[in-house]
């Protein structure tokens, strides 16, 4: 009862404490509110991912439909071809679709099947197409917009997606029959390495938020202590004052919960219009998991009370209004050291994570939390030990050091968030560097020779030749390695019906193009070559079974097994030279028959593929978009791939994106915490600053003093973060059974810490200048 009465008294002081009481409550509430809003966003992530997956599954082709036997033409069936494209670095997904009956299936979010020449688009795409920014894309998608895709058919509000109606798409032209939408939720198990990464990311991002909340409930503490001293004078004992202080913090945290809830609800309404690194979310996706939200609601006020009670133990409030910090007692090292060591021990005892075994997340999360909290606990001791040894120096330095020597607790608390964030980020970066190779795949592609690869199949030779000409005429295109390719057979039936019909590829192009594909040496139009792979005699022999010099080859590959197909024979010249195949820009080896256009007119080929590997002049604006527009004009289903030397696993890439988003939010929160702390200290020293002005103290002297006062704890904090983060990184990397590949990853993070020092100092200066006025000397 006494407890409740004292807590209630504290709440009443906070609520009815006049301007000062409300100012303190507001400070705490805004701080706690920001932390709570971030926690609510974090607790919404599982729901957000579930909703996205559900919508993705719903628009996926049904499993039955993918079975050729069950996918029969019907009143509802649809032919479609993937027409995904890219526009200025953004993916624009979509399909070209043709109804096969009167009642075609519509994808989720689409009310009416688009008529030929019309399209249904997502709101983001509609907006882009309507703007001058989307002018080039409009050329690629010149269809009339007949409707908008509803939210149920989109992964996110920013997604650019379309469905185009067609009356010309055929199966022969690449169309695929679809008889149903929606698949059961796929349980794609994450790789154990990714599980560990995600656990550590959650810990790294949420521990600083927890620390920030703990710091926020102590905002305005010095003023509160003076008020409590007055209560001591009228008879409250030390324990009561602690409980009253806890009551004040409880009130602040409860208001903070409301503020956080309000910030979350208001922020959620605008989340759809916010896009970070091409990611956005529907407001309805951002719904916290009930048990996580309940945990936040209980844990935040409880931790506010506990933090205050613990903090008040180091403060002696005396009845005469004298508040002395019991700092002279000195901080003890042993138990502070014990926490991170225990964390490391938990991680080491968990052992290495198996490649295919399920991961138990709890000891990993627990160990990492202990290490990071341990670093936050070590920091006050280390800052105190460091500043105790500092002597001399110029006046601003002396003022800052003496201030920290007198009381470094507040500064350490403000910095502990940055220490934990940087330590966690260092460990994570080390893990990312160590496991990155596992998720990066060398493609073998050579972007220096060509940046784009286009491919269309089942076209006749004439169309293929026109395709290459069209790309050559496209604005910004430097060279086109354009080939028309087909499979050719050895004429006649094999002796044994079980034997395979000898077959090889035929590639037709000009001399310059063929030179890109094989070591052909001299070449004139009309020449023909037989390209053998390097160091593969068996394959070379197989090629030679078809490519017999001076003998005929069957150009119609369908002749062997399609009834009614007509034979089309061509004689491989007797003087065709055998050459060694090389790698094209895509990294593929071209072997078989290589013929110049003069030797074999590609227009005569009955069935061919067109492959164009295109190099653009990157100085021409939007050259890539012109290439894609040409491709879409020729065939909306033609895929244009960008050549890269490395591809990155999508899941891995999205985890990395999540880390960047979270780290940005955490660092912003920490900077805010440091700034509030700094401003509060300055306000506390208003009168003293006025006195120093009276002495003629220069602004620059006090400005430097503020800088050093911020910098010293931050530098100590970053050193702790580097050592602790590297230690944690080494252990985690060892757990993943990977070697540490990068030791200097902390440098950019240390730089970010330096940036924070400068930012906080600069943002404090306006108040410092304002306080350095003689008004503070006035008492009346």
């Amino acid at each position, binding site marked *: 009862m006494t407890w409740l009465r004292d807590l209630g008294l504290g709440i009443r002081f906070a609520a009815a404490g006049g301007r000062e009481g409300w100012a303190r409550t507001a400070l705490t509430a805004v701080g706690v509110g920001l932390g709570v809003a971030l926690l609510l966003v974090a607790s919404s992530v599982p729901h957000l991912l579930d909703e996205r997956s559900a919508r993705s599954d719903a628009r996926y082709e049904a499993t039955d439909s993918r079975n050729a036997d069950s996918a029969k033409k019907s009143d509802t069936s649809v032919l479609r071809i993937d027409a995904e494209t890219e526009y200025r670095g953004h993916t624009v997904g979509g399909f070209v679709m043709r109804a096969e009956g009167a009642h075609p299936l519509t994808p989720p979010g689409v009310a009416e099947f688009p008529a030929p020449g019309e399209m249904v688009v997502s709101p983001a795409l509609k907006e882009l197409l309507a703007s001058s920014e989307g002018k080039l894309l409009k050329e690629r998608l010149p269809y009339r917009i007949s409707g908008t895709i509803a939210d149920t058919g989109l992964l996110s509000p920013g997604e650019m997606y379309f469905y185009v109606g067609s009356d010309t798409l055929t199966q022969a032209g690449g169309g695929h029959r679809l008889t149903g939408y929606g698949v059961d939720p796929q349980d794609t198990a994450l790789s154990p390495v990714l599980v560990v990464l995600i656990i550590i990311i959650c810990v790294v991002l949420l521990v600083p938020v927890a620390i920030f909340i703990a710091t926020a409930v102590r905002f305005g503490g010095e003023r509160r202590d003076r008020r409590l001293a007055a209560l001591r004078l009228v008879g409250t004992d030390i324990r009561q004052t602690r409980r009253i202080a806890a009551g004040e913090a409880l009130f602040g945290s409860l208001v903070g919960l409301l503020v956080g809830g309000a910030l979350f609800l208001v922020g959620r309404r605008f989340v759809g219009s916010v896009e970070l690194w091409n990611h956005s979310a529907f407001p309805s996706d951002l719904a916290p998991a009930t048990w996580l939200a309940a945990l936040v609601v209980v844990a935040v006020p409880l931790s506010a009370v506990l933090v205050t009670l613990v903090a008040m133990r180091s403060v002696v409030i005396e009845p005469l209004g004298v508040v*002395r910090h019991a700092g002279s007692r000195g901080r003890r090292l042993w138990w502070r050291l014990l926490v991170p060591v225990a964390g490391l021990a938990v991680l080491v005892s968990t052992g290495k994570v198996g490649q295919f075994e399920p991961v138990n997340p709890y000891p990993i999360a627990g160990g990492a939390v202990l290490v990071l909290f341990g670093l936050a606990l070590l920091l006050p001791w280390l800052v105190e030990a460091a500043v105790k040894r500092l002597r*001399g120096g110029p*006046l601003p330095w*002396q*003022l800052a050091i*003496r*201030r920290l*020597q*007198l*009381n470094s607790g507040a500064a350490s608390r403000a910095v502990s968030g940055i220490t934990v964030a940087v330590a966690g980020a260092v460990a994570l970066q080390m893990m990312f560097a160590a496991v990155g190779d596992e998720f990066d795949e060398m493609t073998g592609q050579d972007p220096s020779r060509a940046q784009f690869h286009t491919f269309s199949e089942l076209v006749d030779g004439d169309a293929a030749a026109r395709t290459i000409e069209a790309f050559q005429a496209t604005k910004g295109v430097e060279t086109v390695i354009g080939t028309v390719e087909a499979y050719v057979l050895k004429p006649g039936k094999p002796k044994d019906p079980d034997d395979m019909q000898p077959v090889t590829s035929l590639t037709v192009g000009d001399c310059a193009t063929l030179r890109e594909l094989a070591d052909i040496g001299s070449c004139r139009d009309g020449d023909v070559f037989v390209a053998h792979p390097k160091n593969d005699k068996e394959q070379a022999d197989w090629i030679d079974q078809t490519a017999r010099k001076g003998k005929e080859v069957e150009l119609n590959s369908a002749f062997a097994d399609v009834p009614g197909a007509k034979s089309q024979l061509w004689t491989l010249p007797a003087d065709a030279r055998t050459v060694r195949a090389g790698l094209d820009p895509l990294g593929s080896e071209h072997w078989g028959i290589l013929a110049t256009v003069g030797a074999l007119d590609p227009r005569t080929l009955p069935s061919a593929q067109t492959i164009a590997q295109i190099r653009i002049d990157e100085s021409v604006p939007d050259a890539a978009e012109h290439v894609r527009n040409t491709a879409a004009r020729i065939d909306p289903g033609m895929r244009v791939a960008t050549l890269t030397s490395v591809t990155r696993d999508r899941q891995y890439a999205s985890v990395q994106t999540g880390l960047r988003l979270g780290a940005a939010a955490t660092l912003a929160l920490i900077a805010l915490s440091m700034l509030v702390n700094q401003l509060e200290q300055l306000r506390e020293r208003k*009168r*003293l600053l006025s*006195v*120093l*002005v*009276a*002495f*003629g*103290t*220069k602004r620059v*002297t006090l400005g430097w003093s503020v800088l050093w006062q911020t910098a010293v704890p931050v530098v100590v904090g970053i050193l702790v973060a580097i050592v602790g983060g590297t230690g944690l990184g080494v252990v985690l990397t060892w757990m993943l059974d990977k070697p540490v590949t990068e030791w200097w990853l902390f440098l950019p993070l240390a730089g970010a810490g330096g940036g924070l020092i400068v930012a906080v100092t600069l943002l404090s200066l306006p108040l410092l200048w304002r306080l350095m006025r*003689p008004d503070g*000397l*006035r*008492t*009346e």
Partner: protein
Amino acid sequence: MTPAGSLLVAQDLHKTYGSTPALDGASFSVHPGEVVAVMGPSGSGKSTLLHCLAGIVTPDAGTITYGGREISAMSDAERSALRRTDFGFVFQFGQLVPELTCLENTALPLRLNGVRRKDAERTAREWLERLEIDGIAAQRPGEVSGGQGQRVAVARALVASPKVVFADEPTGALDSLNGERVMELLTESARSANTAVVLVTHEARVAAYSDRDIVVRDGRARDLEHAV
């Protein structure tokens, strides 16, 4: 008309805070080595007069001349430099920097003037000895009594050998015994260094240490011995 031989002269000062007039035609002068008490009830404008004289606050109207230079026409940087080199201050509650030791607090004006730390602290220690508080040199303000703290403030005001010391209720927070001792030390030290003292007080007991009294009432200063 400026009184002959005056070090610091103010004429017809006006200063208003919001709609409240603090000074309304106040005039004042002090000679080198002279101790002048500025007396008056609370809210009469005596502290504002001191702040104007010291160049901390700029008057709305009127002139302040120090050593032939007009303070009210100086820039903020020039006035700051003047306060560092020529003026010293003692406030009611000492207003020592809590994180610095008493020795470092005393040395502060010298360090602000660019004197090297060791030299500044040597001079500061001499002043602490003169004021009989060298035993608390290494202690912080929070660890010493009010009287000791105020003596540190006096030492700090005199350490840079200023021409004028401005003291605003220097004994207001002390008991009578301590207050008298602080006044004795302040006035003796100032007189021996030929430093003028402008002493704001409302206690006749404190004003008794002065050579001359000026009464401020309703923002106007009246010299009790000779009109300015």
